[in-house]
């Protein structure tokens, strides 16, 4: 892969429209295929909140859950603003 792109760079000043189209397509199809129905995402959001809030006090309204493309694959990312870390005694007992 690395060799190929290296040679590609030597032989052509830009990637061909053909290969750009293929790369873009691959990525967009991955996102399309990984798309998760809205209600499932919402359920997942609640579940994640529940688990995380056993250990941390968080800003629930600011939780940001996303499917993102990263390096040719799709990643689930969660951005959870933390207010404070709960003391260990509270943390160990699930509510």
């Amino acid at each position, binding site marked *: *892969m690395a*060799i*190929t792109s290296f*040679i*590609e760079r030597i*032989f*052509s000043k830009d990637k*061909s*429209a*053909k*290969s750009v*189209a*293929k790369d*873009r*397509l*691959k990525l*967009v*199809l991955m996102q*399309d*295929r990984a798309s998760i129905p809205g209600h499932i995402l919402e359920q997942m959001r609640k579940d994640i909140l529940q688990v995380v809030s056993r250990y941390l006090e968080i800003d629930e309204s600011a939780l940001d859950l996303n499917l993102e493309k990263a390096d040719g694959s799709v990643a689930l990312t969660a951005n959870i603003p933390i207010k404070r870390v709960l003391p260990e005694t509270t943390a160990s007992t699930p509510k």
Partner: protein
Amino acid sequence: MSETSRVIVVTSGKGGVGKTTTTANVGMALAGLGEKVALMDADIGLRNLDLALGLENRIVYDIVDVVEGRAKLRQALIRDKRNQNLALLPAAQTRDKSAVTPAQMKQVITDLKEEGFTFILIDCPAGIEQGFVNATAGANEAIVVTNPEMASVRDADRIIGLLEAQDLRDPMLIVNRLRVKMVKSMEMLGVEDVQEVLGSGVHLLGIVPDDESIITSANRGEPASLNLESLAGQAYRNIALRLKGEQVPFMDLEEKTGFMDKLRKIFSARK
């Protein structure tokens, strides 16, 4: 009743990629090989298949008339005078998709089988809504038509997923409107690229070049597949033969990809 009736929906998701053209031409080519072919226009409200076949002046009844009992199936079927093996069941032009239910589509197909057709090809409307559901309801197999172009391939991928949900697995693929020169000069997706991104679940059935003769023959109402001398005519005949199970090598339309592709193959083969 024909035991071996094959019911194939021709679909794509995106509009304008060549579903109707493909249905007309593959149907005509199959009829030319001696199959008894019924072509069903499932694009209710936007009928087109009659034009592609040049049969628009012979329509008396349509599929909605059949479903609603105003006409017998036999009265609505239009036999092609150029080849008696070919018949068209036209869509209604003044109604919409909701005029027919999936159950009614299935019934019409059962009746077409009774008539002894060996191939029933269904021209699916664009989109993924009720028209798609209707057109796929009675099908056992699917042909996905795509152009070597991003939006079309993306929609094809989506349609493949929806077909699967309707139990139409491992669809056949036709890459339509290939421009060989542009593929060779690395300006356009090639057939291999399309296959690669769509994955191994789809089986390449044919490659049809972007060919002016398809446009002129559509204008004349004489499907290009009637002319076996033309590149397009050959492509459709090959598709018909493959549908019948024959091994026909793919025409040399796209195999000669660019230098970079060859290199890429060499290197990716040994990673």
